[in-house]
């Protein structure tokens, strides 16, 4: 484990770092550039940055129009407004024609903290995943985010990526052989009793949960599933077969997101108990991010509890 950096920060840095190499990259924002961290790009490349104002629907359509002319637009706002407010524009103007637009939702999940439920998007994985052909991802740390941003620049098609507000520990840089590939999960820790499949900042929590479980003699495998769609079915099924129980963990509603994707995959191909850990189909609330996360059980202890439950269901 090394430095702490928010994935939004790492993303903003990556945009600047990659701008010269990808001259068609353009960045749009909806009056949140200081929060989404596209501000660095706006200052370094002002002619390639477009502040579209508090008008997310139009921003998505503009990005679509630009993509038809060969640009590579990254359209940024909070997850709530990218996935929520502008869902139908993303669906009809971007995904349906298969345009090369990257929709980037910052401040996903409960870790928004003080701003409360109106800004804590917990549905984005579910509703973006429901769009045909949409790639959906949520990298876990700064190092992975940088790789994911470049991978999206090399992927020609619509995608949604969630960024987080909080500074989080970088964990993927110390994993031997770590390699980022869209649609391929990464095994961060091996284990044979249960598998924890997580994304976003729940990956760090999952690693801590695995350490808690180890103290009890339980060997938990931890998979960083940065890409929710397309899901790395082979890795999920291997874990199902080898460990016999799965916990999914996400900073999102347990309905429709990563947990649902894993359940669909496992139940159709290799049924084993799956316990979905996440936001239990309730709205968030105001509070300091860590306190809100704790209040909703989005903690290493919460994941460890879910793991014990999953193991107890093994036949």
């Amino acid at each position, binding site marked *: 484990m090394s430095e702490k950096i928010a994935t939004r920060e790492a993303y903003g840095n990556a945009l600047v770092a990659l701008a010269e190499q990808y001259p068609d990259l*353009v960045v749009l924002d909806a009056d949140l550039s200081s929060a989404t961290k596209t501000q660095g790009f706006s200052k370094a490349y002002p*002619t*390639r940055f*477009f502040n*579209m*104002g508090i*008008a997310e*629907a*139009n*921003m*998505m*359509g*503009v*990005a*679509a*129009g*630009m*993509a*038809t*002319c*060969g*640009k590579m*637009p990254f359209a940024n706002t909070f997850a709530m407004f990218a996935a929520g407010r502008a869902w*139908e*524009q993303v669906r*009809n*103007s971007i995904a*349906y*024609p*298969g345009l090369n637009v990257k929709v980037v939702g910052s401040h996903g999940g409960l870790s928004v903290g003080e701003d409360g439920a109106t800004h804590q998007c917990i549905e984005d994985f579910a509703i973006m995943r429901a769009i045909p052909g949409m790639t959906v991802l949520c990298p876990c740390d700064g190092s992975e985010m940088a790789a994911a941003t470049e991978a999206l620049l090399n992927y020609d098609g619509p995608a949604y990526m969630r960024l987080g507000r909080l500074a989080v520990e970088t964990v993927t840089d110390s994993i031997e052989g770590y390699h980022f590939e869209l649609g391929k999960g990464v095994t961060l820790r091996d284990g044979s009793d249960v598998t924890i499949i997580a994304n976003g900042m729940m990956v760090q929590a999952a690693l801590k949960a695995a350490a808690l479980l180890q103290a009890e003699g339980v060997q938990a495998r931890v998979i960083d599933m940065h890409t929710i769609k397309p899901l790395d079915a082979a890795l999920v099924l291997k874990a199902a077969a080898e460990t016999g129980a799965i916990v999914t963990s996400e900073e999102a509603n347990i309905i429709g997101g990563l947990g649902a994707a894993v359940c669909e995959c496992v139940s159709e191909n290799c049924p084993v108990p799956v316990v979905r850990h996440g936001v239990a189909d309730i709205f968030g609330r105001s509070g300091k991010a860590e306190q809100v996360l704790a209040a909703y059980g989005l903690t290493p202890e919460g994941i460890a509890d879910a793991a014990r439950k999953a193991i107890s269901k093994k036949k």
Partner: protein
Amino acid sequence: MEQNKIRELSIIAAKSRILGLDMVHRAASGHIGGSLSCMDIITMLYNGVMRIDPSNPQDPDRDRFVLSKGHCTPALYPVLAQRGFFPVEALEMFRRVDGHLSGHAEMKHVPGVDMSTGSLGQGISAAVGMAMAGKLNKKNYRVYTVLGDGEIAEGQVWEAFMAAAKYELDNLCAVIDVNGLQIDGKTADVMPTEPLDEKLEAFGWKVLKADGHDFGSLQEAFAEAKTVKAQPTVILAKTVKGKGVSYMENVAGWHGKAPNDAQYEQGKQELEAQLKELEAH
């Protein structure tokens, strides 16, 4: 405009009206009323305004067209077919599950369609994006879009209007097909959108007015739009919904309804008489 050119355009539009009516009747569904109202506008664009090459529909330097009122494919598809983007016979596949001519405009499979549209209010934003990309790429293509006056009620349209003014998109020309009707009745009753001229001016647009069924008037407006600098242009085109078919004219009920066989025969006879009249002179 020369009489010969007016005659040529009138004939293309008359043929397109017949083809559009055929499409909707054959498919037993589709949006004929609004298609007949914007038929002359789209005919004008593809036969005298836009710089396009049907043999190279993806030319990066081409002018772009976005049918923001994306349901009016019975206008767009016949005009594209007659212009040579695809065979006229292909129109028979309109709305068929075994074909690609979907009910609303579709860019992936239909040559000449620059943007998939259909969900109202979204096309204008894509047109703004195309115009912004044109400026960024230092291309001198122009972008055209046609909206319905009912569509203007979508809030996204006004977001797009603001953005077009902010970025001084003088390479963008929008046409509002002002036929005064929408599905549920008169636009003035359902959700009043007038005064469009004052609103658009206040939003920073150059506002021009035209008779949407007069090619001379339309051409003049499009020519003037090309001379406007540092702001986008909108042409408020006064039109008649259902234009050309007597029983459809100015009747909101013909927004999204297909004619039955008897209605179709009558409509076709009327449109063919109009074509014959044009060809005789």
